[in-house]
């Protein structure tokens, strides 16, 4: 057997009160795309941080091609040949691509030469990118390419990618996969972190699955079904979201020709948005973040006012009404940003329950807060939605993302909405919590409410929604029934398709070329 590129042996890392990694051992071979699977909090991030030199493990060791490997800092990891693309980009919007790449390098070459290198790498790997464009003007997919190219310029042997596809359209995902396969063809290895099981099955040949910090299985994901993988991750049998036959009722929410100027230079204006949702129906709105999702939610919640007739709830115009008037009519919302928007981070769960539940749950009498009732309401949400927390007095920021999300969604659902608008309800939420939230949304629709689900997760939209439309640059496409909709059609609806096709062609061409185009690396 050949020496693996990286062997991890008995790696353990504990934080006060939490075992992040416990005795984890696995190997990554040369030229292998290795999946690291696990729920949020399973210890994936800690593990890759150890590999990238951001933290030092308490016990265990790592071997790089058989030699001991213990990076004390990321630059040592980079010098060895490890590169990492983070889930959240660290780019400066006001600088161009080449400048951003230079900032991330230990010894950047002159900017002109660097720009040439970037152009070279981007054509070699089918990642179209103009080094002189401002990052602020790039799409999420293009920004990711900046990060990937920054890594590739270091000529890495091991590329770590943390949830790389969470912000990409299906076409962009395909381009990325072609790039990754090309890298594998060159003998490089990739450690691929994701919880999108279909992707892993399409891309990876080995998978290491973590649960609560410990390794539970290593397998070939191509031999397992997505469901088997998910059950290994979660440790219990997963219930796929289910819904009995639906009965569609009257139109509860109607938006007609909604135009709204962006509140800031970095916002997106809504342009002639129209939609209608009936009782018992879930309307899915897809699109890459930054295409007007936040603005649409603000327009529906009442945080941004529009023409009075542009939005009606049960026939009643509410465009100029504030959030609480709309809540009284049964239109409730759950924004994407949990901390700071849907919930106040430093306030207790009781106070956060009061935040939107004040009037509908009668937590206020004559202007005075009934704290006992507010607390009881918070406890009800915690219990019904299985929010893991010591109690309602805990500050919102102390909860994990998934638990707070369950609380925030639960808070709205418990108020028996007639129309519920949710933005990214399962973003950064672990699989079990995501399944619970999706099920709750479907139950709500089943009970006769109209649900608008804004999400970037296409799998989620296609499993949960009845009709699908895409939000692109502030415009909403006409809805189409989800049944019979293919991924490709969805991708085209999401827009920017022309650009993507060009990119895909370039990628295909470069694949066809010989592999003479070695990376011009500046280590």
């Amino acid at each position, binding site marked *: 057997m050949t020496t693996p590129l990286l062997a991890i042996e008995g790696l353990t890392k504990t934080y006060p009160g939490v075992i992040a990694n416990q005795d984890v051992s696995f190997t990554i071979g040369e030229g292998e795309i290795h999946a690291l699977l696990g729920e949020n909090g399973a210890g994936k991030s800690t593990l890759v*941080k150890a590999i990238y*030199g*951001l*933290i*030092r493990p308490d016990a265990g060791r790592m071997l790089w091609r058989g030699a001991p490997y213990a990076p*004390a*800092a*990321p630059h040592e990891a980079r010098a060895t040949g490890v590169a990492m693309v983070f889930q959240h980009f660290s780019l400066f919007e006001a600088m161009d691509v080449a400048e951003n790449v230079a900032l991330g390098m230990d010894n950047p070459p002159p900017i002109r030469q660097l720009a040439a290198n970037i152009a070279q790498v981007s054509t070699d790997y089918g990642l179209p990118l103009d080094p002189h464009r401002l990052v602020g003007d790039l799409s999420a997919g293009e920004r990711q390419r900046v990060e990937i190219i920054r890594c590739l310029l270091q000529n890495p042997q091991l590329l770590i990618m943390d949830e790389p596809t969470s912000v990409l359209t299906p076409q962009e995902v395909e381009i990325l996969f072609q790039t990754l396969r090309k890298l594998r063809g060159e003998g490089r290895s990739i450690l691929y972190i994701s919880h999108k099981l279909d992707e892993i099955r399409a891309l990876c040949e080995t998978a290491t699955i973590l649960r609560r910090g410990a390794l539970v299985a290593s397998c070939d994901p191509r031999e397992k079904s997505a469901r088997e993988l998910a059950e290994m991750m979660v440790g219990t049998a997963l219930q796929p979201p289910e819904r009995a036959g639906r009965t569609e009722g009257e139109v509860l929410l109607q938006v007609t020709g909604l135009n709204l100027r962006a509140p800031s230079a970095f916002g997106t204006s809504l342009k002639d948005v129209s939609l209608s949702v009936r009782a018992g129906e879930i309307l899915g709105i897809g699109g890459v973040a930054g295409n007007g999702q936040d603005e649409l939610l603000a327009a529906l*919640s*009442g*945080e941004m006012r529009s023409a009075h007739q542009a939005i009606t709830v049960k026939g009643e115009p509410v465009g100029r009404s*504030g*959030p*609480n008037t709309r*809540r009284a009519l049964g239109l409730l*919302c759950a*924004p994407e*940003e949990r901390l*700071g*928007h*849907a*919930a*106040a*981070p*430093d*306030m207790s769960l009781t*106070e956060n329950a*009061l*935040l*939107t539940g*004040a009037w509908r749950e009668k937590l*206020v009498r004559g*202007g*005075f*807060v009934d*704290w006992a009732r507010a607390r009881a309401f918070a406890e009800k949400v915690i219990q019904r939605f299985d929010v893991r927390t010591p109690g309602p007095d*805990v*500050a919102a*920021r*102390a909860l994990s993302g998934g638990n707070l999300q369950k609380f925030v969604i639960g808070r709205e659902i418990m108020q028996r909405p007639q129309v519920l608008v949710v933005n990214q309800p399962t973003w950064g939420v672990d699989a079990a919590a995501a399944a619970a939230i999706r099920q709750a949304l479907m139950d709500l629709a089943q009970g006769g409410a109209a649900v608008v689900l804004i999400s970037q997760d296409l799998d989620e939209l296609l499993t949960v929604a009845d009709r699908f439309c895409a939000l692109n640059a502030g415009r909403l496409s006409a809805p189409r029934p989800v049944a019979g909709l293919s991924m490709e059609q969805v991708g085209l609806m999401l827009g920017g398709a022309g650009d993507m096709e060009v990119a895909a062609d370039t990628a295909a061409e470069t694949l066809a070329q010989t592999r003479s185009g070695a990376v011009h690396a500046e280590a």
Partner: protein
Amino acid sequence: MLRLERRPQPSRAWVWAAPLLAVVLTMLAGGVLFAALGKDPVAAIRLIFWDPLFSQQFAAFSRPQLLVKAAPLILIAIGLAIGFRAGIWNIGAEGQYIIGALCAAAVAMAFFPSGPTDVRFLGLEFTMDSAPSRWWLFPLMVAAGAAGGFAWAMIPAILKTRFNTNEILVSLLLVYVAEKLLAAAAVGWLRSPEGAGFPGSRNLSRFPEAANLELIPNTGMHWGVVAAIIAVIFGYILLHRHMLGFHVQLAGQAPRAARFAGVAPARLVIFCLGLSGLMAGLAGMFEVAGPARMISIDFNVGYGFVAIIVAFLGRLHPVGILLAGFLMALTYIGGELAQFTLGLPSAAIQVFQGMLLFFLLALDMLSNYRIRLTSREVTP
């Protein structure tokens, strides 16, 4: 290596321990300062914190003074704290205090009985008694003081909501405008006709219906103290029991969540600035009708600014402000005592008071962060 680590939630213990520790550190650092000035640090600290309350020699005079000085500080600080909780920074309470006093004094002067005082001066007091009782005058002055402070605070409020100006700058600069108006009043339109040309208004203590007299003799207890106590109770109920107070805190902590909860930011600005201006105006009214007795050029002594320290020292919490107001008043009275018995320069006393805020703000960090000793470990 020392490292600051964010706490998962704010430490309750530190929220209350920080002001106490700040007082102790101020005493220590102040002691060093006084020693450097060649004074006995222990005696100076004792003179500031202990003698005003318990010494045979000074307490009889100092204790009532404590109430007199603490009341306006508390009254103003409660109003400011509500705004500060909402993230609305009224720095100009001093100006609102002055305008409140001017308005109240103007009302009193309008009804000042010019005849009877002369008569009373001659010993014929019955003329006063025969006049119809003007019981409504004092309430009218209270209303005028409140309205004056409110109106003065509306200037930064409206400029902020309409033109998005910075309320910190506008309210602060209006203090200097108010001081000019005060000077103009003292030498001009409110000057006493009997003052022989000296600046300053008539003396309100000579006009019982308009005077804010001691309710219990020799205690310092006047209507302003009652108002301060009511303000503490009002502030507590508003912040902790009422929806409006919840929205105030929400807006301060998470503005976006506040809008989501249905808070209209402009209305909140008007409310918070208006309320703090109103309370500062009230404080000015009680002061001019009571301890100050008249409008003079140097009528204001900085209560509006010191109240900012009081508000923070009291953790923006009404009960905390009550305690902080007394502590601050104590350092004032004790500071004066130290000035004339030990000959400490007044600047040293001001530095001493400044230290209190300095240490408090520094220690404040500990309620949200903890200090950790760490081995070398690189974080992203």
